[in-house]
């Protein structure tokens, strides 16, 4: 039986702070991809709230000492959503926000898919799907062997769970009782192209299916499953709090999300997985995200953009 995350009783100021962080992550995602004229949008936007909660509430980290040995580890297994991770890390103070303007460019520390050798604070290089959870299992094993109480968090896409390696790792995680390992599945119900359902020839998302296929699979592999509305910040905090109370099983947080969340014309549209955005679309997106009109970060960042 999966658990449904009970919302945490957050102080209203803390809730407002995390909500604002999530909004700013989304603004940075859209601006950065528009500037780079490359990158993904739908998946990063669906992961913005979990990243806000992780980086600004849950993770035990020290951005001033990115390789602090006792830190919690975070692996973005769905590495194509790197821009969301970079936005969260910049806002948290790992590097200057202006550096977002270098995303995807030659020489940048902000590679299209995360490169741990370039950017301090990245715990693993990713980009080939299905791998992050294996590396996370290795980190969780290593933490336990060395008596470290650090936790390892791995963000996976739901499409990524089609990779067989994910289930190899799920088997091993349960066998080794890695209850210091938390997989977070960004269950936005869409992938780059996907299947055409007979009833929905236009590649619409599967209807939300709480207690559905993914939950059954992770449970069958021996994981403790916590379901959460992936855009409900108090629920996320509650889910991660629950995950931190170990019971011998690794934890899968199945986050029910909307691809492209926050931008009206991107929500639930598979083709916004990755697609160039026009200046007109950018203006609408900024309006949707509550970003005041005015000079873009391009100008305010001293021309870096």
């Amino acid at each position, binding site marked *: 039986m999966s658990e449904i995350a009970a919302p945490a009783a957050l102080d209203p100021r803390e809730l407002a702070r995390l909500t604002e962080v999530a909004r700013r992550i989304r603004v940075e995602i859209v601006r950065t991809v528009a500037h780079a004229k490359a990158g993904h949008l739908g998946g990063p936007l669906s992961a913005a709230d979990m990243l806000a909660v992780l980086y600004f509430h849950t993770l035990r980290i020290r951005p001033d000492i990115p390789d602090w040995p006792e830190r919690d580890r975070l692996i973005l297994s769905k590495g194509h959503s790197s821009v969301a991770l970079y936005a969260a890390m910049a806002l948290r103070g790992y590097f200057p926000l202006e550096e977002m303007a270098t995303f995807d460019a030659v020489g940048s520390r902000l590679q299209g898919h995360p490169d741990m050798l370039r950017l301090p604070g990245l715990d693993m290089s990713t980009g080939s799907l299905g791998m992050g959870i294996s*590396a996370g299992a290795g980190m969780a094993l290593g933490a336990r062997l060395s008596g470290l109480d650090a936790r390892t968090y791995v963000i996976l896409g739901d499409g990524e769970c089609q990779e067989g390696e994910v289930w190899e790792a799920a088997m091993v995680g349960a066998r080794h009782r890695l209850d210091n390992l938390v997989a977070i599945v960004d269950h936005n119900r869409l992938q780059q192209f996907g299947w055409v359902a007979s009833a929905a020839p236009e590649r619409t998302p599967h209807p939300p299916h709480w207690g559905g296929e993914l939950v059954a699979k992770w449970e069958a592999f021996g994981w403790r499953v916590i379901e959460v509305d992936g855009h409900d910040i108090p629920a996320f905090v509650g889910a991660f709090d629950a995950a931190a109370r170990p019971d011998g099983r690794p934890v899968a947080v199945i986050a029910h999300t909307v691809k492209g969340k926050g931008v009206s014309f991107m929500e639930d549209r598979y083709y916004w997985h990755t697609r160039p955005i026009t200046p007109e679309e950018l203006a609408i997106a900024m309006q949707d995200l509550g970003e005041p009109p005015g000079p873009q970060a391009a100008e305010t960042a001293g021309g870096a953009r």
Partner: protein
Amino acid sequence: MSLPMGRAQREIFGETVTELANDDPRIVVLDADLGSSTKGDIFEKAHPERYLQMGIAEQNMLGVAAGIAMMGYIPYISTFVSFAVVRPLDQVRVLIAQTRANVKITGAYAGLFTGQAGKTHQIVDDVSIMRAMPNMVVLSPCDDTEAREVLRWSAAYDGPVYIRLMRDATQRLFEDGHAFRFGEAVTVREGRDVTLVSTGAQTSRVVEAADLLAADGIDAHVVHVPTIKPFPAAAIVEAAAKTGRVITIEEHSVIGGLGGAVAETLSELRPTRVQRIGLYDIFTESGTNADLLELYGLSAPKVAAQVGALLREG
């Protein structure tokens, strides 16, 4: 000269990694259900808490290896080379090589000797593949003595290393006390007529072949290359200059392996005729070790005959 038989490199693997772990708590072994074959079981007996069974799931195992390496451990891989190199190749590429993870890809069953298992278990293109992998060190020891030294060296090196180990006992070329020098070639026989370059257990058979050639009046210079990457280019150039003619012999595909590395090096630095003896673009088959060496022309007499024929052709 007929060389004495040494011990199997897989036994040396189990013993040496166990010994290293006695002194170094960072060393762990990750096994994909083959510890009884790779002799990882020797490690399990001594250090059960550091013997991490990963089940029959090699892609995940190589990923776990990268993750545990990031936590300060030094994982050694216990499976057949086929399943440590090509099956999880993308994990090796993205999680281990690109990140320079301190993972040692080991496990024996390289080449033709797989206990008659045939094409799936024999791997004869691993050197080509791993040599092309940025950041990867590629080592191919000749015998039990050198395998032990290579394994000891690998624990002290911080970064990804692929060690090409064999399943079965092979001839012993090096006596105890032989030191492995990373990145260097080893001249195992001085000669004037032709330079023979080899690697792995094949070198012992080439040394025996050189004696057969000597009886025919051919004085072969034999160079052993235990470090295939980084490649000892200067030593190969020097050895080529000595005789003006080079023949490579490897228990491996001639495409991109040792022969490829020698040809690339010499064509750039000192154009010299290079001919390659090895496996020519085929899938190999099951059989006894002796029969396979005969079939593929890698036994000492067959090597001697081929080298003699090449030299007579001019």
